[in-house]
C-alpha cells in the first residue's frame, strides 16, 4: 500500500467536519453542549456502523455486533472499576477479547459454511449470550440497571481516559475515531482481500477453486470488524460515563447497527456515516417535536417517545423493499446515471 492519495475534495471535507464544532460555537453558543453531543454521537455511531459494514458488505450479515460493542464497553469499565487498570491498557485488552470471541465464533461458521439465515441467527445467539452474562454478573455489572465507570478527579483525565465534561475534546476524539474508521474502510476497499471476499460472497465454491482461502479471508474481516466495534463501544462508554446491557449490548442494539448501516448504504464509504446522521437526526427531531407538541404528549404521554422507533421501523421496511442500496448508495447511483446521460447528450449535440 503506497498510502492514500488525498484528493482536494477529501481534504476540504475533512476540514469541514473538523471545523463543525467551531461553527456550532460561533453560531449556536447558547446550546453548544447539546449540538456537540449530537455530533459526537453521530461520529461514534458512524465508526461502529462502518465497522459492521466491513463485514456486512460481503454478505456476512451479523446480528452479533451488539456483543462486541458490549464486550468492549464492559471489559474496559470492569477493569477500571475493579482492578484499577487504566483504559489505556483496558481498551486494548477489551478489543483483543472481542476479537478472540469474534474469531472463535467465526471460525466454525466459515469452516462449516454456516451462512445466510443460520449465520444471522447464530450471531444473534451470541448477542443474547453476552447480554445474559452481563445481566447475570450483576454483582459487578449492576445487572440490567447498568453501571458507571468510576469518576477520576474532576472527570477529565488522560490517565483514566475520561473527557466527558469537555465536549470539544470529546468531539475531536470522536472525530479521530471516525477518520480512523474511514481509513480502515478505504484500506480494505483497496486491498486484494476485498476482491477475494467479494468473489466469496458471490460464489464460495468458485472463489475457493481459484485459490482463495475463504475461511481465512472471512476470519480476517471478522476480526477487524469485531475489533472496531469493541473499540467503538469502549470509547462510547468513556464518553457516556454509563453502560447498560440494553444501551451498549443486546439484540436491539445489534438490529440498530444493521439497520442504520443499511439505511445509509453499506457499499459506499460514507454510507454508514449517512446512516448515523439520518437515524440520530430523525430521533432527535422527533423528540423535539414531541416535547414541543402538547397534542402528541396529551395523546400518548411519555410513550410518545416510541414514535421515533415506529417511524424508524416503517422506514426500514420501506428502505429494504425500495432502496436496498441505502440513501447514499441510491443517491450516488442516480447522480452517476445523470452524469452519464448528460455526457451522452453532450456528445450527441457535438
Amino acid at each position, binding site marked *: 500500500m503506497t498510502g492514500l492519495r488525498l484528493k482536494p475534495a477529501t481534504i476540504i471535507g475533512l476540514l469541514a467536519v473538523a471545523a463543525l464544532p467551531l461553527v456550532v460555537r460561533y453560531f449556536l453558543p447558547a446550546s453548544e453542549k447539546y449540538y456537540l453531543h449530537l455530533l459526537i454521537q453521530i461520529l461514534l455511531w458512524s465508526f461502529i456502523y462502518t465497522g459492521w459494514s466491513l463485514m456486512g458488505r460481503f454478505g456476512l450479515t451479523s446480528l452479533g455486533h451488539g456483543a462486541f460493542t458490549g464486550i468492549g464497553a464492559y471489559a474496559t469499565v470492569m477493569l477500571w472499576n475493579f482492578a484499577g487498570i487504566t483504559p489505556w491498557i483496558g481498551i486494548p485488552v477489551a478489543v483483543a477479547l472481542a476479537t478472540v470471541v469474534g474469531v472463535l465464533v467465526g471460525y466454525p461458521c466459515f469452516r462449516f459454511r454456516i451462512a445466510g439465515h443460520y449465520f*444471522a441467527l447464530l450471531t444473534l445467539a451470541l448477542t443474547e449470550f453476552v447480554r445474559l452474562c452481563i445481566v447475570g454478573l450483576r454483582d459487578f455489572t449492576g445487572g440490567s440497571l447498568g453501571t458507571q465507570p468510576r469518576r477520576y478527579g474532576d472527570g477529565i483525565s488522560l490517565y483514566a481516559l475520561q473527557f466527558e465534561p469537555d465536549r470539544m475534546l470529546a468531539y475531536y476524539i470522536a472525530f479521530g475515531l471516525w477518520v480512523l474508521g474511514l481509513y480502515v474502510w478505504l484500506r480494505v476497499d483497496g486491498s486484494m482481500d476485498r476482491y477475494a471476499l467479494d468473489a466469496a460472497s458471490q460464489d464460495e465454491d468458485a472463489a475457493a477453486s481459484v485459490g482463495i482461502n475463504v475461511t481465512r479471508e472471512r476470519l480476517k474481516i471478522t476480526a477487524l470488524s469485531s475489533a472496531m466495534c469493541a473499540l467503538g463501544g469502549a470509547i462510547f462508554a468513556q464518553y457516556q460515563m454509563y453502560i447498560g446491557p440494553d444501551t451498549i449490548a443486546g439484540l436491539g442494539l445489534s438490529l440498530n447497527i444493521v*439497520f442504520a448501516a443499511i439505511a445509509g448504504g453499506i457499499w459506499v464509504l460514507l454510507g454508514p456515516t449517512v446512516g448515523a446522521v439520518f437515524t440520530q437526526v430523525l430521533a432527535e427531531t422527533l423528540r423535539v417535536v414531541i416535547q414541543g407538541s402538547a397534542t402528541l404528549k396529551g395523546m400518548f404521554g411519555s410513550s410518545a417517545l416510541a414514535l421515533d422507533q415506529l417511524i424508524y421501523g416503517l422506514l426500514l421496511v420501506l428502505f429494504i423493499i425500495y432502496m436496498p442500496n441505502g440513501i447514499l448508495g441510491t443517491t450516488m447511483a442516480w447522480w452517476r446515471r445523470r452524469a452519464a446521460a448528460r455526457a451522452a447528450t453532450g456528445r450527441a449535440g457535438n
Partner: protein
Amino acid sequence: MDCQLDIFFLEAVVNGLLLAGLLALLALGLNLIFGVIDVVWICYAELVMVGMYGINYAYKGGMPFLVAALFGIVLVAIAGALLHFLVIRPVLETPPINQLLVTGGVLFLLQAAATMAFGIEFKNLGIRLGSLNIIDMSFSWSRILAFLFALAGMLALWLFLSRTFIGTAIRAISQDRQIMPLMGVDSRKLYLVTSAIGGGLAGLAAALMVLQYDIYPQIGLQFGPLIFMICVLGGLGNMIGGFVAAFIISQFIAVGSSCFHTEWGYAVAFLFFMVAIFIRPQGLFGSRT
C-alpha cells in the same frame, strides 16, 4: 446455588417439560413458514405480543376468555397474512437476508406501536387457575393447560397438513418451490395461507401465554431469540427437529434457573446452542442441501 437430586429438582424438570410444549408450538409456526416460504420472521414473537394484547383487551372488554382467545388467534392469523402480503412478497425474489431484515423493521414497528398504544406498564388478565399439588411439588394449571393445548395445536396442524388437499399442497411446495407452480399450483395463494396458519399458531401461543405471563411491549425480545434458537437447533424448517429441540432447550432453562440465577439457565442454553451448531451446522435433525 445448591443443586441436589431432590423433589425440587424433579419439580424443575417437570416445569421444563411444560414450558417445552409452549416453546415447541412457537417454534412450529416459524418452522412452517420457513419450510414453505423460506423466510425467517424475526418479528414472530412480536406477532405473539400483538395477539396477547388483543386477547387482553377483548377479555377486559367483556368477552368470555375462550371467545377472546379465538379472537386473538384470528387477529394474529390476519396479521400474518398481512405481513406476507405487504412486506414479504415485495422482497421474495431478493437475497434471503433481506427478507430476514425486513421483518426486523416490522419488529421495531410493532414494538413501538404497542408502546404507544398500550404504554409500557405490565398488563395481566387477572385469571387465576390455581395449581396442582403433588407431594411437595406444585404445578400451575395454566402451564399444564398450555402444554396440553400446545400439543393439541400441533396435532391439529399435523392432521391439516396430512389429511386435507390444501395441506398436501403446502407440503408439496415445501419440497420444491420451483416445480409446483408448473403443476398449476398458485404458490402466491399457498404462501398467503401458510402465513395465515403460521400467524394462527402464534395466536394460539399468545392465548396460552396470557394465562402465564404479564404482557409488555418488549416481551418479544424475551421469547424471540429463544424461538429462533430452537428452530435452528432442530434444523430450520424441520418440525420434528424443532419439537425435540424445544424439550432440550427448556430443560437447560428450567434446571439451570432452579440451580442458579434465571439468566444463567438461559446463558447456558445459548452456549449449548452455539456449540451444538458448530458440531452439527445443519441442526440436530436437519439434512444438508
